[in-house]
């Protein structure tokens, strides 16, 4: 049954360019997918490790900037991918060493500061990042000879990466490592007493999270063929976190639903009014105040409640 549902879902996702109608919507679907990868990455920390990061747009942006620079040096897709992800992993390690000096709110504050450093570099260190003008790349790469130029082609490539990310997350959640990450979130002292190296587990979770943020950043670069300081602003980090929280932290599907919600909202709202930042802030406040556990767990609870209240009614009919 669940295998069937999975198959149907895959078929629907793969057929998006055929049924969604218009390249505009195909492009939005691609955006949903790569932002979902970023949200999945943020969720590793914010959800499973209990470490809320407001600096992940920094890692996302470092991958995009590194990719753009390497690509403009004339390297092919393999060189760009390996190089950009290596730089991102290194940056994640530095972020992790510093941010893990604190937990809880200390961690939040340090990640805000780290994210702002990346922003400052992107904005001011003009000889490397070209400042406010950003860096453009010449067209999308064609890995294995496949062209990513068409919206549908790019969508399918992103879908493959997205499915890989989801599969990796599913393995991570079910693995002993995933369990130990959750352990450090719920009972750090007990985990320590049991002989686990709490710091190392968090550090590895940070790297894992940073890796997928970097992958998302590269896809962002290929999609826009351009990167500017806007990609690493605090707003971008907040959006990523909103996706996770809106969808439901520490769930596999939550961040994906959250990414779809935020990306679609952003495109729809921006089409009608200019006030996306206001709406973003308002959704943030509303979700935190009224639906603190997110849409997916919230909907699941609603569904359980509806079924529970429907059952006695059915019995009385029978």
């Amino acid at each position, binding site marked *: 049954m669940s295998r069937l549902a999975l198959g149907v879902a895959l078929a629907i996702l793969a057929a998006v360019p055929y049924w969604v109608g218009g390249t505009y919507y195909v492009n939005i679907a691609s955006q949903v997918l790569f932002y979902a990868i970023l949200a999945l990455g943020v969720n590793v920390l914010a959800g499973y490790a209990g470490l809320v990061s407001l600096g992940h747009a920094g890692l996302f942006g470092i991958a995009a900037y590194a990719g753009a620079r390497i690509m403009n040096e004339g390297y092919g897709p393999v060189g760009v991918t390996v190089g950009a992800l290596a730089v991102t992993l290194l940056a994640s390690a530095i972020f992790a060493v510093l941010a893990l000096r*604190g937990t809880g*709110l200390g961690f*939040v504050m340090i990640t805000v500061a780290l994210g*702002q450093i990346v922003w*400052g570099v992107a904005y*001011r260190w003009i000889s490397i990042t070209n400042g406010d003008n950003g860096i453009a790349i010449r067209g999308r790469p064609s890995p294995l000879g496949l062209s990513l130029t068409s919206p549908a082609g790019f969508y399918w490539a992103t879908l493959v990466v997205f499915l890989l990310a989801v599969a990796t997350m599913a393995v991570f959640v079910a693995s002993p490592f995933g369990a130990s990450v959750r352990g450090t979130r719920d009972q750090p002292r007990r985990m320590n007493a049991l002989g686990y190296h709490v710091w190392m587990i968090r550090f590895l979770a940070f790297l894992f999270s940073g890796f997928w943020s970097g992958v998302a950043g590269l896809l962002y670069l290929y999609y826009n063929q351009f990167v500017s300081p806007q990609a690493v602003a605090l707003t971008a980090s907040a959006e990523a976190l909103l996706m996770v929280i809106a969808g439901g932290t520490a769930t596999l599907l939550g961040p994906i639903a959250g990414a779809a919600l935020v990306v679609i909202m952003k495109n729809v709202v921006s089409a009608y009014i200019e006030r996306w930042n206001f709406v973003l802030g308002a959704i943030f406040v509303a979700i935190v*105040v009224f639906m603190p556990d997110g849409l997916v767990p919230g909907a699941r609870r609603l569904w359980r409640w509806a079924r529970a209240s429907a059952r006695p009614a059915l019995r009385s009919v029978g």
Partner: protein
Amino acid sequence: MNLWLVLAVNSVTLGGLLFLLSAGFSLIFGLMKIPNLTHGSFFMLGAYLATSLIAHGVDFWTAAVVGGLLVAVFGGIVERLILRRLAGAELAQVLVTLGLSFMIADVCLMVWTGDPIRIATPSALRGATSVAGLGFPTYRLAISLIAVVFAVALWALLDRTRLGAMIRAGVDDPAMARVVGIRVSRLFTVVFCLGAWLAGFAGVIGGPILSVYPGLDGEMLPLALVVVILGGSGSLLGSLVGSFVVGFLYNFGQAMFPELAYVVLFLPMLIVLVVRPQGLFGRPAA
């Protein structure tokens, strides 16, 4: 005047402004355990409100005090209506303050448009004052003086009054403070309003130097964060020292490494984090 001296004066001025901004941030963080991410917005909102007041003929100092008061009232409403509902859920409180900061920024953009607005220097403080044979810009000296006066006043408030003793008790051990009959939740409101007022006031008196423009909030907030991480949360002395360190780094960094000024600013914070995570004057977490 010598370039280094100019930089030093500018550093002291920025340090004074940062002290006004971060003292409230630090107290709120120390007492309520919330890194109030709307603090930069309070700074910007105060300045914007004052530009409107001044445009309606109110004089500079009244505008500064009233602008601060309006921000304080707004802060009080936020604290009472939203943060209070989320008591105990610190993470949710942080996220709400972040969401609010986006909303405030967008409303300011809508009301005051995207063009920078400069607040005119009050006429009595224009020009230069000569001290020991050197000419200093009078207004910058005045800001430094105001910061010193506020530092002393805040120290007196915290160290010498009953209210200050209650706040210190709340910072040290909120549960025990409640047991001995201190209404800690009322202190939250008082401290939040005070912090908001200081931030709004600082925004106004910073106006003649910095101007007001969209994005000012996002520029001031990280500075306040650095000051508090550097100085330690809940410590007035920490904010004072941190503010001047950041003020000097910012100005000298910009003169010496213009492209890297922003990074130079964060270096001492990173060093302090590695060596002494609780901040220079903070106490280690219990």
